[in-house]
């Protein structure tokens, strides 16, 4: 079904005469706007959470899946030889794109957070690390371990799966929870707007009866209510979204220090996503009110 633009614009422009037929109701109107705004505000955060954890999961699985570490723990005099042997093994292993022994400077940088900058790496019996980068297909970790144990006795392969998997799973689960929250918020919005619409329809039973008596079609009567609730939801959701986006924008960013938390926000074109919320809220209100109105009208003569 292609949306009929002329019908949508006509719906938005509305019929001034038709709008006056339903008496204005101040209190429920404000409640609907408030609900839409609050729900949109929450949706912005749920969306930010989903997108942030999505990015996190992608980054972890992407960067970590492709990299693994080979640790060579050997006496100082054998370290050099074993490293060379290990690199030779890795070069001939299918699925390994590149393998590179970390330089002393890099190893020192890795240890710096724990031991400070003045660590004499050269004179300490710390293991040599080899960074292994997989290609698209990946390598057979078990087979590689077997070969290494034969040729490089001091080598320990850490393919990161052990600690990567739960992290990625946690991030994925969080992302799922985020989307689930958005779905729940949408459903709750629909439920609340249905209640509000039903209250409005019940309060205006006489109006509906009169309109029906003078020959108004159901669609016409429903539209008077649907349009009102849709516009209220649109306005409320727009306000809530703007507030939510501002709130996300002013979240203090502490990029390097906090890792996950600072990721909570929108990056680049993701800022477009929250803009989808107001029309979506309006669509939910439209469907909910229409359904409620049609059901109510069917029961009348």
């Amino acid at each position: 079904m292609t949306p009929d633009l002329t019908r949508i614009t006509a719906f938005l422009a509305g019929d001034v005469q038709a709008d006056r037929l339903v008496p204005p109701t101040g209190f429920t109107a404000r409640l609907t706007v408030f609900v839409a705004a609050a729900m949109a505000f929450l949706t912005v955060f749920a969306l930010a959470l989903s997108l942030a954890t999505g990015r996190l999961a992608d980054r972890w699985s992407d960067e970590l899946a492709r990299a693994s570490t080979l640790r060579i723990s050997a006496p100082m005099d054998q370290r050099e030889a074993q490293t060379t042997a290990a690199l030779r093994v890795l070069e001939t292993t299918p699925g390994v794109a590149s393998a590179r022994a970390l330089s002393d400077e890099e190893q020192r940088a890795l240890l710096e957070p724990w031991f400070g900058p003045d660590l004499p790496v050269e004179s300490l019996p710390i293991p040599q690390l080899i960074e292994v980068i997989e290609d698209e297909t990946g390598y057979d970790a078990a087979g590689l371990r077997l070969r290494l144990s034969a040729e490089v006795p001091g080598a320990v392969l850490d393919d990161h799966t052990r600690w990567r998997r739960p992290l990625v799973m946690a991030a994925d689960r969080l992302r799922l929870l985020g989307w689930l929250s958005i779905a729940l918020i949408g459903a709750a919005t629909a439920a609340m707007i249905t209640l509000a619409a039903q209250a409005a329809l019940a309060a205006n039973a006489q109006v509906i009866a009169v309109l029906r008596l003078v020959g108004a079609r159901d669609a016409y009567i429903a539209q008077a209510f649907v349009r009102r609730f849709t516009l209220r939801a649109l306005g409320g959701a727009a306000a809530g979204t703007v507030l939510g986006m501002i709130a996300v924008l002013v979240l203090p960013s502490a990029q390097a220090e906090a890792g996950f938390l600072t990721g909570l926000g929108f990056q680049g074109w993701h800022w477009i996503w929250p803009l989808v919320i107001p029309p979506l809220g309006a669509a939910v209100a439209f469907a909910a009110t229409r359904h409620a109105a049609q059901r109510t009208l069917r029961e009348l003569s």
Partner: protein
Amino acid sequence: MSYGGGELLSDISLTLSPGSFHFLTGPSGAGKTTFLKLCYGALLPTAGHVRMFGADVRDMSRDDVALARRRIGVVHQDVQFLDHLPVADNVALPLIVSGRDRTDESENLSELLNWVGLSKRAGALPAELSGGERQRAALARAVIMSPEVILADEPTGNIDWEMSQRLLQLLVELNRMGKTIMIATHDMNLIRAAKSQVQARVLRISQRRLHTAGADL
């Protein structure tokens, strides 16, 4: 037609011919209102057939019924209006809901309000009207679409005799313009007053049946 478990109207067969003038009478609770509601599709018969302009109401969609109602003007004893809109808008309501432009019909509207004697009350809210004014406003609303049929349910039930006469006068005038009129009433004086001006048939509901009353009224 049964209602609330018991059969209310049965063995009724009647065709309203265009341009006719009918009174519908009978004791309270006999089913006058029910009969009228059947006539404009507000109720469906439990047995038998009701046809509006040749179409069986059972086969009509809700929209069909709505469209048929634009050709039927209905006046109730306790008329309901949109209480937040002034009289002029309430009278013009059928035009608004049928999507006609009110501004095109403003001349018609003021003429009609003049005819029912409500020109000066056009800006008043329904709640500010007297009983007679309400009935006349209801009649104006019922006829603004120039319907072919006008159904009135106890239109004079709440108003004094003088006002009843005036309302009857309006209905008689409409009948002379070719409209089919059906008035449910138990006011015999009203029927007698009408008979002197118009060829009116009297239908009487009793014992769940519809009788054509004698000419002795």
